[in-house]
Structures are given as C-alpha cells and as structure tokens.
C-alpha cells in the first residue's frame, strides 16, 4: 500500500460522513476524539460547538425531527460520552434518527479504568437502537454505513459508534464497504394484504370511527395519506403529542391531542367510538390512562412499523406491520365507510360545550401561545417546547398545520430539550422562524446554549412562560398533595439581563396587551431573543386525567 493512499481513522470517518450526506455535526471535543476533530479541520462539514454535550445531542435531534434526515452528534470519551446519554435516550423514546459518535480510550487501555474511560456502549445499550465499539480501523466504513442505515430505516432511532483513539488515529486505505449485510435486521415495508383487507372490512362496518394518529405518521411521511383516509371515511382525528402536525390543526375533522391533557371532547370521542384506527402510535400510558377503560367500546386496528408495539399495552383486533405510508396507500384503495351522521353531530356538540378555554384576566400563558400561533399562521415557522405546563399548553393551543413543525420531547419528557433542539432546528431551517416555548425551570437546564445561538448567529426565540414555579409539578402538588409545594417554587435570575449578558436580546412582558408587540419585536430581531412572560403564577393545565384514571374522567 502506498503511504499517500493511507488515511487516518478520523479522515476515513469524515469521508464516510460525507458519503452519508452529513453536512452538520453538533459536538464538543476532547482528547479521545482529537484525531477526528483534526480531520474535521480540513472538511467542509459544519461543526456546531455547543456548550454541553447534552445540548449537542438535543440539537442533532431537533435537526433530525425538522428535516427527517439523521442528526449527528459527537463527544469525547468518558464524561463527554455520558453527557450525551439524556439526549440519546430522548431520541430513542421518540424514534428519532440519530448517529452519536464518541471517542474512547485506546483499545490497549479499555477495561483498565483508564483516564476518561466509560463503557459507553454498555451504558447506552438500552437507549440505542444499536451501538458499536470499533476495534479495527478497517471496520470503520462498514460500521458507519450500517449505523446510518439502522438509524434511518424501520422504526428510526439513535445508533452510537464508539471509536477508540488508536482506531481514529490508525492509518489504512479507505475502501468502500459494499452492500450492507445484516442478517438480523430486515425492516418490512408493505403490510400483509390479507390484514389490510380485513381492516378495510372493519372500517366498512364502523358507525363511529375515530383515528388516533402519532409520530409514526410523521416519520414515514404519511401525512397526506392520513388526511385522505380521514376525509374518505369521515373520521375525526385525535393525535398524540408526537403526532401534532401529522394532521392539519385547522381541519374540521381535527380533534387535537388525546389523553392526560386532551380536550374533553377528544377523550369523550375516544371513549365512545366503535372503531379506533391507531396509526403510528404506541398506546403510551399518558394517552390511554387506565388501560381497561381505553376505547372500551371500539374494535381496534393498529398500524405500525414496529410489530413489538402490537398488544404491548392494549389488545388489538387487527394489527398491520409495515411502513405507515405504504400501508395507508394500500388501505385507501376501495375504502368505504358508513358513519352515523349523529356521530359528527355529537362531537360538534361536545366541542361547543367543552372548549379548551382559559381566563382572559391578567397575563395567561395560554394567551401567549394563542397570540404567537395566530401571528405565525401563513409563515414558515417551527416550534419546539420544553417540558411541563408550557409543553401541554403549546400542544393544546398552538395551531400546527404541517408535519415536523412541532418538536417536543414526548416519551422521555426531557426538561432542557427545547432550547438546544431549537438551535438544531434553526441550523436545519435557516430561513424559518424558530420559537422554543419554555418554562422558567426548563430553560435553566440548558441556558448556557445561548452562547451557541449567539456565536452561530441563530436567531432562535424563547418564549419563557415564567410562573416562578416548576409549574407542572406544582400543579400535581396542588391537586394531589394538598398544596404542599415542596421544592417547586423557583427563585430565578433576571432573564432579560441573562440574555443581554450572553449577547442576545431580552424582553419582559407583564401585561397581555404587550404580548403582540413583544412577539413582533422578537420576530423582527436578527438575534436570539429571550421573551420573559411574567404569567399568572398558579394557572393550571386543564383538563387533566388523574393518574390511573380512565381518560373520560377528567378534572377541569
């Protein structure tokens, strides 16, 4: 082998990433990844330096959710790698395609408790779709190719590649690994025709059909077919938190989110439907409440790419394994349904009787969301959220009309997710308006990323719904723990000054009349903006299904 044909493992990795179409990496360097960072120095892949590896993972995740392409994050060994863990787990719970690259101590030191050694493949086994420890630089091209394939196909998820320092520094010739040969991994696309036919038959018999749609619809790019299906059989559509955006929020058949913080009319409809078409969902406990009472009058059809979801939480009558989009295309052919007109009327009546409402006195968090939602209609925008009341109000009151524009940590419920995710989203969508809806608690979990936003001139806006509490936990303490507010009252910094100190812009809003002008100012600004909305302190997210209750038994 001629020495000029030899590349380091780091250079080979960069080659492989380019072959996969990677144009941005979110990461943080360190000793064990130096050979990789050295190779990146010469490449035209954009590297976004976050201020914490957790943020790098969330940013890669936000990038992936906004684009559908895999997000890539990178960290050094040991503490760098373990700092990625929350971000990887977040992506795993929400089926987000991600490739995480970590440095590892040299192969000769593995197992010796070397400086900055952590068994990151061991640590991330339960929170990755698959992971690799690269032992030989010659394996690198194959492993990278497999990693991207696994992360993006079937049910998407995070894949971690752990690269020891001597592997990334080791030299060899770059060779294309050829076709992928994974005997144990063959995601299936089309649904079994007999099952699709059986589903069509059940649909034809339904009088009160209801669609329960989730993130799987967005992942498979099936929004258009979901809409066709709903309109063909005139079925109202309830969505999960992850499904927000898979069906237009302004469509007459749209019922919004179901479950713990679903609207009364939505949960009543689920309770009374006679056919539940569950599409790209996993019957999460926040959706079903008490499982025995969930859609208990309905036959259930479940369509999902992951057969392990069938019957995991709720028994189903017909399960169709396959890519949601492919299955819907098949299902829509020759579909008939004969819904009872009284069904639509009943739902319309419920909608009138139990709207998602709130008081207009003072500065209400819901008003902030509604105002922002109104202002953004007709524009290109993306919304991320933190976790807590802010997230649920955003889910309830934001009118989202297209997929991939509402981005939230559903499965893991990770506080501190929204802001770094928004940074990733803004990198992916430089021409769009990006808002993170935040709580005063959540924003402080990754507030250091304001530097990242300022450095890379990413004009992300953060609407902090500042109630001086860990609001959602306080709400539970109010409702279920006799108002004993243990450790939920927050003493906060001055967020306006914080923003300014970081070189961003800060605005404080204390009256509802100021909401719109402040939002306008933020939208017009070319800098990242922290909007500090001083909202009513003890506002609650209503309705709420108490934990363990049937979803038809809501409070509020």
């Amino acid at each position, binding site marked *: 082998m001629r020495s000029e044909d030899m590349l380091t493992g780091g250079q080979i990795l960069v080659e492989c990433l380019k072959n996969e179409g990677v144009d941005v990496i979110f990461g943080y360097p360190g000793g064990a990844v130096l050979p990789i960072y050295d190779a990146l120095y010469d490449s035209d892949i954009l590297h976004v330096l976050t201020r914490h590896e957790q943020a790098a993972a969330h940013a890669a995740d936000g990038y992936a959710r906004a684009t559908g392409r895999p997000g890539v994050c990178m960290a050094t060994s040991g503490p760098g790698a373990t700092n990625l863990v929350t971000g990887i787990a977040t992506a795993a719970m929400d089926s987000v395609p991600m490739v995480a690259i970590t440095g590892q101590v040299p192969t000769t030191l593995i197992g010796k408790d070397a400086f900055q050694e952590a068994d990151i493949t*061991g640590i991330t086994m339960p929170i990755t*779709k698959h992971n690799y*420890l690269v032992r030989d630089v010659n394996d690198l091209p194959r492993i990278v190719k497999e990693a991207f394939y*696994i992360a993006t196909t079937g049910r998407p998820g995070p894949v971690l590649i752990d690269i020891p320092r001597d592997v990334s520094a080791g030299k060899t010739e770059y060779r294309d690994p050829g076709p992928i040969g994974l005997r144990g*991994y063959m995601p299936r696309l089309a649904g079994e025709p007999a099952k699709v036919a059986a589903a069509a038959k059940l649909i034809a018999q339904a009088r009160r059909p209801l669609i329960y749609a989730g993130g799987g619809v967005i992942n498979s790019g099936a929004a258009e077919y979901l809409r066709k299906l709903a309109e063909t059989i005139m079925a109202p559509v309830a969505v999960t938190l992850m499904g927000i955006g898979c069906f237009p929020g302004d469509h007459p058949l749209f019922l919004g989110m179901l479950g713990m913080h679903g609207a009364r009319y939505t949960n009543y409809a689920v309770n009374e439907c006679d056919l539940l078409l569950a599409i790209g969902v996993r019957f999460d406990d926040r959706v079903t409440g008490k499982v025995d009472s969930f859609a208990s009058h309905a036959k259930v059809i479940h369509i999902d790419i992951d057969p392990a979801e069938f019957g995991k939480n709720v028994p189903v009558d017909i399960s169709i394994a396959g890519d949601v989009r492919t299955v819907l295309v098949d299902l829509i052919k020759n579909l008939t349904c004969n819904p009872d007109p009284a069904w639509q009327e009943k739902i319309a009546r419920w909608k009138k009787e139990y709207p998602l409402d709130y008081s207009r006195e003072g500065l209400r968090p819901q008003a902030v969301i509604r105002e922002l939602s109104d202002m953004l209609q007709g524009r290109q925008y993306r919304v991320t959220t933190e976790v807590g009341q802010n997230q649920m109000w955003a889910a309830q009151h934001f009118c989202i009309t297209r997929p991939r524009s509402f981005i939230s940590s559903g499965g893991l419920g990770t506080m501190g997710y929204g802001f770094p995710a928004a940074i990733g989203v803004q990198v992916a969508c430089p021409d769009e308006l990006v808002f993170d809806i935040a709580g005063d608690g959540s924003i402080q979990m990754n507030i250091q990323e304001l530097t990242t936003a300022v450095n890379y001139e990413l004009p992300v806006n953060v609407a902090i719904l500042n109630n001086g509490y860990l609001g959602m936990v306080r709400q539970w303490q109010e409702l279920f723990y006799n108002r004993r507010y243990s450790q939920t009252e927050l003493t906060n910094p001055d967020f306006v000054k914080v923003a300014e100190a970081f070189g961003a812009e800060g605005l404080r809003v204390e009256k509802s009349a100021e909401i719109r002008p402040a939002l306008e100012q933020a939208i017009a600004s070319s800098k990242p903006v922290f909007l500090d909305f001083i909202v009513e302190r003890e506002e609650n997210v209503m309705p709420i299904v108490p934990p363990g209750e049937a979803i038809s038994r809501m409070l509020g």
Partner: protein
Amino acid sequence: MRSTYSVLVENNPGVLARVAGLFSRRGYNIDSLSVSRTDDPTVSRMTIVVEGEKVVLEQVTKQLRKLVDVIRVRDITDEPHVDRELVLIKVNADSGTRGDIMQIVEIFRGRIVDVGEYTSIVEVTGDEGKINAIENALKPFGIIELVRTGKVAMQRGTRTVLVED
C-alpha cells in the same frame, strides 16, 4: 407459562449483554440461558427458558427480534423437541456409601467422573425431570456442590432453526 426459545445471534462481542439486558430491563424472568457458538463460528445459539404470562412471552419474542444482532427467534415449546441439561454433583462418599451411590448413578445412566477419599463427582445428562430426580436421590448422602448447564434444546425431525430459515 414456561417457554423455550431457540435463538440464533451474531457472534459479536456484547451480544449476550444485549440479550440479557433486554430481559432485565423489561422485567422478564429468565429461568435458564445457555449459549455457545454453532458449527458456523459467526453464529451463536442461545437456548432461553422464560417464565411468564402469555402477553409477556409474546413480547419476549418481539423484543428479541428487534435486536440487530439477533438473527432468528423461535418458540419451540409446543414443537416436538429434545432438550438436555448436564449436571455435575459433588456428593459425600466414603467406602460405606460409595456402593449405594454407584447404584443410583447406574439407574440414571449417569457416570462417576471423579473419586476422592471422601467425595465423588457424578455427571448426568437428561431432561429437567431426570436431573431433578437424581438431585433428590443423592441428597441424603449430602450434596457438597452442584452445577447445571441450563437447558439446550433442538427440534426433532426435519424442523430447524437456521440462519437460512
């Protein structure tokens, strides 16, 4: 319910941890697990015996199939199959009891593979019932140490669990 699975996996480092981790994370109960490579050095076979309700057992199969390193999973409980376990039992034995022990071992078609001044090691293979039976039969002499391999199983006749299946 108790089910026996025949599982083929890539012979990659960490594959046992992946499978075992899946069981512990989801709270499934492993009764026994035996693993070693097959005639193909890139493939290992695991025989896993799991105790659980029907829904749990269904999940076991599905979750195992999701692992990238898992090539085949087959529940062979209800298929005709041969299953075997090997046990080594170190039992108290002196000149007074050695004859009785030999007789018992004979009945179970086992072998005595080590004889010491005060102990013997007995080797027996068989299905679970037989292993339990000899264990009980030798108990009165005083079992000092016992080691079982866990079950291995294979379908009878032409049925197989192979990579190409």
